[in-house]
């Protein structure tokens, strides 16, 4: 039963107030994109054992989407941040490095 602090309204949200939205920071590929890129965009996923960046919506709450960095092995939540960004904030990345030296996710580490 996970909990996250919603970075948009500040509420400590219970999992049942949230909607899980899958992997974060996925780049959209539209018309003109190669088959590879399009398949990757829709289907290929990191599915890491460890640090993961994912999307949640505070659906029974302020209604906003946000991102979370979470460990899929321990459920530890390293932090949450608004969805209007292409990559996680620096201080969060530093915090993860401090707690999980040598971690990596896509091109982040």
């Amino acid at each position: 039963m996970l909990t996250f602090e919603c970075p948009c309204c500040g509420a400590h949200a219970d999992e049942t107030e949230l909607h899980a939205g899958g992997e974060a920071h996925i780049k959209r590929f539209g018309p003109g994109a190669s088959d590879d890129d399009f398949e990757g965009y829709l289907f290929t996923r990191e599915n890491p054992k460890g640090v993961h960046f994912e999307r949640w919506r505070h659906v029974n709450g302020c209604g906003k989407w946000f991102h979370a960095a979470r460990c899929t092995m321990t459920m530890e939540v390293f932090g949450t941040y608004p969805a209007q960004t292409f990559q996680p904030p620096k201080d969060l990345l530093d915090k993860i490095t401090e707690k999980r030296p040598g971690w990596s996710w896509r091109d982040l580490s």
Partner: protein
Amino acid sequence: MSIRLATGGRLIDRNSTVKFTFNGKSMTGADGDTLASALLANDQMLVGRSFKYHRPRGIVASGAEEPNALVNLGQGAHHEPNQRATTTELFPNLIATSQNHWPSLEYDIGALNGFFARYLTAGFYYKTFMQPRAFWKHVYEPFIRQSAGLGKAPDPETRDPDIYEHFYAFVDVLVVGGGVAGLQAARAAGESGAKVLVLEQTAFWGGRAPVDGGEIDGLSPDDWIKKTVQALEAMPNVTLRTRNMGAGVYDHGYVLGYERLTDHLANTRGPRHRLWRIRARQVIAATGAIERPISFAGNDVPGVMLASAARDYLINFGIAVGRKTVVVTNNDDAYRTAIALKKAGQDVPVVIDAREFGGGALMQEAKALGIRVETGRAIAKVKGGKRVTGVALCAMAGGGAMVEEIACDAVAMSGGWSPVVHLWSHCGGKLTWDDEQSFFRPDSSKAPTGADGQAFVVCAGAADGHMHLRYVLQDADLKGKGVAVSLGCDRPQTTLPTAPDSVETPLMPVWLMPANAWDDLRMKAWLDFQNDVKVSDVQLAAREGYESVEHTKRYTTLGMATDQGKLSNINGLATLAASLGEDIPNVGTTTFRPPYTPISMGAIAGEARGEIFQPLRKTPLHDWHEANGAHWEPVGHWRRPYCFLRDGEDVEQAVHREVLATRNSLGLLDASTLGKIIVKGPDAGRFLDMLYTNMMSTLKPGKCRYGLMCSENGFLSDDGVVARIDEDTFLCHTTTGGADRIHAHMEEWLQTEWWDWQVYTANVTEQYAQVAVVGPNARKLLEKLGGMDVGKETLPFMGWVDGTLAGFPVRVYRISFSGELSYEIAVPAHLGRAFWDKVLEAGAEWDATPYGTEALHIMRAEKGFIMIGDETDGTIIPQDLGLHWAISKKKDDYLGKRAQARSHMTDPERWQLVGLETLDGSVLPDGAYAVAPGNNANGQRNTQGRVTSTYHSPTLGKGIAMGLVRHGPDRMDEVITFIGDDGETEHKARIVNPVFFDPEGEKQNV
């Protein structure tokens, strides 16, 4: 025999007797008894039958770990199977019956299994019952199922009369367990000002301490407990709850508390159980320890009991479990039982101590009381069937050669203790083997971690492996303070309670008694009393290569009974380790799963039953429908009228009437459930162009346009009419099921992809009641209501306008889903019912006929309009449905466009929408497939199409259908064959234009 003594019993009130019945026999207990103690007070030694061999079973324990004393409790709607007698508080007129026997507890045919025990070893099922094949289903399995299964099922035709509820609690510190450790830990944490909740599963505070004796701060345990509870009650930041069990620990500090509010009462009001969902920053598990049985032959005979349980029954309930009780042990603690019994005037023929030199001070005390002590000795076997009659004494070292037979009617055994580490383990806490005390204890370096990655569970007292009062209190105080500090509170100043040091001689692990017990003895040495798993079974599993503890457990069913192995796991594990020649820690431990003890399904469901099982969404017109014969159809959480039944009509007749009334004169539909979403902003048009397959930005204010939405994966997900309100405002209609889904879809794209676009959305679905006025007389009705011009010029087809009708503020959309002249009228929801009544009244002269979803479906099908969910199923793209006209060629992008360019999406072999008519006018079966010649590589019939919607058309007086057919549109008038669900019956159908009625649209455009 077990009896109630004339004196003693700290938990009972001898002066108030309680009558109850067991297997129809009326008995008497005392207020404060558990069902188990009351049964013992009535010398009811035999309480049930075991799972596999139907062996006689008696009470072994005094608490949650009891594997045998399970009863059917209550009658009729109140009946509940598998109730543990040891944790069932006695109440007046309690009715209990024993389980798993036929015809009776005393004479059970199933006991025959026992005679075949030598064949019915672990895993014997897997090795036989294979021939002949049919026998498994018809002979073997039914027999096995009948003889298994324990309790009687509740009556399926009655509903649980009790109510249940949930409660969310947020605390800094949750203390599970109200023994002296829990109380001291709570006090230490409480002093720091932290918000503390303490849960105790029984009705009493203090746990075992009062029974085990000793002294705390110079007080008797009872007095210290009373004093401490009073102190805790005085703290505003501390909450104490009894009859509330910590059932499970989950991620991020989530803990289930199972509170039994009325189980101990005869007549009940209010909730029976309350399931607490607790969020705790820190959890202190002060859950104590459980005594282990010893594996010797006949250790399952009624009258053989845990030494601690015998002590509990004596001191808490004033019961002697036997007049002559033999004590057998590998540690000092069991001497307390011998001493207590002796002091209570009971005969203790001998204490059999497996240790070569026996124990320490407690042994001396026992001897001083004149109790015979035999060290280095063991029980070879217990004599007796349904009752203990004696024990055969032998040397511990040997194979079981009897040196003496000792008569007795009870045996109190102690194989040492195991900390209750369940809550620690539920959420990933690891264990470490304590070799000195021979048990698994929490490995504090591998604790369960929470949302912040920090440990959030600590065990205190016996649960952490501290077995003596003095150290229990020290540890609890330490843990309570430590937790407070970890939460950022000041270190509390509580003083550590003192208890005299007690030196005990270390126990000697005994996993089999005697050490090299002969085969026939091992085959009678029980590990799991309920599931009938014996030492020989575990050894067999090991021999056959089921070496992992999980394999052994599953192969033998060890520890999988309703007690979940509380008594058997460690003994079984040790037996396995010895069989493999491994150290116990190398063999590992089994996983502990929630709940700690079984919790009622009712409590899990909570208040969600009957009327409030799920939300039921109602339109402003719902009550009118209800009162006027609505035959309901669930659509999501809504209920919509499928049709309205008038006197004597069946559903088919009603639908027929509704369609014709609408086509010929005037029909009314409650369209309130259709989604209505406002999209506003400078980029609104651009946004809708991405969402819909067609062009919305070119729509003129005052106009409506039908649009399609696809998922990014290309598939059609919703459709509806979009009205442009003004330059930068649109109102998007969605399907009934689509309102929330599509609004979420819009917000997702706006928030996570195009956050720089200036667009706001608002889901205003429930702001309006929406009424569709449909049919040749629709305009006449609106003109009669009066207040606005709805003429052909001012309000043409696919136009909308604001105004008032009969004094109601309305927005009128002239759109049609039936092919008729049709207006959809939106009024504020609070006025919806009044408006509906007004329309009905005014429409009477045209026989205004409310119609339901089925008439709606038929009329749209007659016009060849697709229905999301019928023609689409999540695998259909607009191109399949001939909707090319609704897919903009001008746009270089929209959601789903790239997906629709993939090879399979552009495959000309994809099935296409067509109309279908049977040759004889009959109705095609729903969901039927059209066959093509031959079979595929897997021997399945080849197909070339399927029916997506099929109806009898009242308008046309024949069956009509839509379907998807390979190359369909190019095969007009061709006849293809559909096959019925019997795989044989052929239904021939001609491929036709899907628009069956008024193809020119003359009716809707008048």
